[in-house]
């Protein structure tokens, strides 16, 4: 009986998540009257704005990942090595972006970096892109930090550092040649999550008026019937693709270790 209820709850959960997706996918295929087709997808892919916004968001995601790695890896490493007592504080700080709404952050940015401020970043496209990258880095911080911190937990950071130091290595060599390669799987996990966040983010890009993928999805949703669900399916596929890659990388790494 218990087993029956367990399976029943599981199936109910699956239906709860799967039905809207199935419905949305089915609807996205019904653009042509009376038959299923990929017309809506074709329309989306034919729209130049899709490629422009998608490539723009990809570039910004890459920049966000680079900034995130440069910020988080040394920080998490240093906290593990020298400031273990500061871990709860750092963890709290990295969790703040989950609590503070993106709209608050972006208004703060606009207020601080507007054209009449000491650092008028919003005055140019490049400056705004930099600002947007920083915003994305903040949003991705909880995920990136946790991924890297989990990765660092799997290696003996202190001893590896001391071994490298005894061989004459400085901090940059230690970070780039020892620590980073050994937490690469964790960094990749964080990077894929960052990519998924950046691709779907709307608030910051819209309020900073940048041609990102999030605002494009919203714009399309407001004006079209079949293309928005097609775009949503595409966005889902990209996100799940990222997750799948994450799993693959992790499994590949485990497999490599298991060969021992």
């Amino acid at each position, binding site marked *: 009986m218990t087993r029956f209820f367990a399976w029943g709850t599981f199936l109910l959960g699956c239906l709860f998540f799967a039905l809207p997706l199935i419905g949305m996918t089915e609807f996205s295929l019904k653009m042509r009257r009376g038959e299923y087709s990929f017309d809506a997808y074709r329309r989306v892919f034919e729209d130049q704005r899709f490629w422009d916004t998608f490539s723009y968001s990809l570039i910004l995601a890459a920049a966000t990942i680079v900034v995130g790695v440069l910020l988080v890896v040394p920080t998490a490493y240093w906290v593990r090595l020298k400031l273990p007592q500061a871990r709860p504080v750092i963890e709290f700080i990295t969790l703040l972006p989950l609590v503070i709404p993106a709209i608050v952050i972006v208004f703060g940015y606009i207020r601080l970096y507007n054209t009449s401020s000491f650092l008028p970043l919003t005055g140019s496209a490049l400056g705004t892109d930099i600002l947007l990258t920083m915003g994305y880095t903040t949003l991705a911080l909880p995920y990136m930090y946790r991924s890297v911190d989990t990765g660092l937990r799997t290696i003996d950071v202190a001893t*590896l550092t*001391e*071994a490298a130091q005894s*061989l004459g*290595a400085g901090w940059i060599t230690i970070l780039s040649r020892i620590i980073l390669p050994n937490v690469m799987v964790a960094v990749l996990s964080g990077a894929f999550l960052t990519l998924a966040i950046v691709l779907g983010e709307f608030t910051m890009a819209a309020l900073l008026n940048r041609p990102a993928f999030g605002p494009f999805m919203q714009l399309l949703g407001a004006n079209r019937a079949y293309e928005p669900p097609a775009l949503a399916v595409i966005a889902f596929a990209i996100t799940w693709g990222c997750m799948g890659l994450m799993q693959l990388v992790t499994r590949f790494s485990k497999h490599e270790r298991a060969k021992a």
Partner: protein
Amino acid sequence: MSFLTLTHLEKSFGANRVVKDFNLSVEKGEFISLLGPSGCGKTTVLRMVAGFETPTAGGITIDGRDVTSLKANSRNIGMMFQAYALFPNMTVADNVAFGLRVKGVPRAERDARVAEMLALIGLSEMGGRFPFQLSGGQQQRVALARALAPRPSVLLLDEPLSALDAKVRVSLRNQIRQIQQDLGITTIFVTHDQEEAMSISDRIVVMNGGVADQVGAPFEIYNRPRTKFVANFVGTLNTFEVRVTDPATGRVALAGQDLTLPDAPLSARTGETLTVALRPEALRLGRLADAEALLPAKVTDVHFMGSVIRLRADVAGTDVSLDTFNRPDTPPPTVGSMIEVSLSGRDFIQLRA
């Protein structure tokens, strides 16, 4: 002047003084072991030499150069760790080459040195493997090659054998000693294993509570321990209460038998009771012609350990351990049987507190 000197070295963590006024001079090519129980400060001393800890007071010189405030990566020191600490993302050859690469050694020279080091540790065929593909003993040998490759002035070994099984441990410690002697490299070895320290060291520093209780050759440390701590920590010890009969000649009485202690004159007065100690192998089973005294004893326990048999017996009201070699034609005494034990005053050790 000594090659490595530690002068009035102190280290405190907050209010906790871990190392107190530690002094040591190490000659070039010498193998020194820091021996002591957990928390005695031996690893902290090693870490200060390596540059991983900054001394609270005192100084460290290597080859005449003051390195006290020098960073760890500028000291030209090789180190082996208990946990191997091989870089998991690099092959064995890359691990060995790491220090040379950091130093900017040209590729041809680097490759030659890596090959030389791998041959030295007998792992020439394993250069392309990753650390996780090696056994613990092999990993530690690679760690030794990696530490030696940049030709360090001092080699530091932080309990490198503790994680290995008994057989590998013995073979690797002999290999480490052999390589150390071949290369003539000054080495400091931290261990809590007395047998390990005694078998490979030129000198041993027995540490207790952050201070060096005694520094000496293994023979001296074992046979002439200066403090109760050293005597108890290194090997097994039997203690006896003896009555002083003539302090000037070192004569004492034990259970009605006269004995002459080696360190005369004695500091105690006539009639005073003195605590002296004796190693298990200095108590001999049976009647021996050269022994000063012969005492009856009752066997309370028998441990057959192969080549050696350790007996526990009641000698003059004192529970003692005594070791005797196994003889295939003579079975060991049984528990409860009476035996005779020979002993001599010259084997007794007088202990400072």
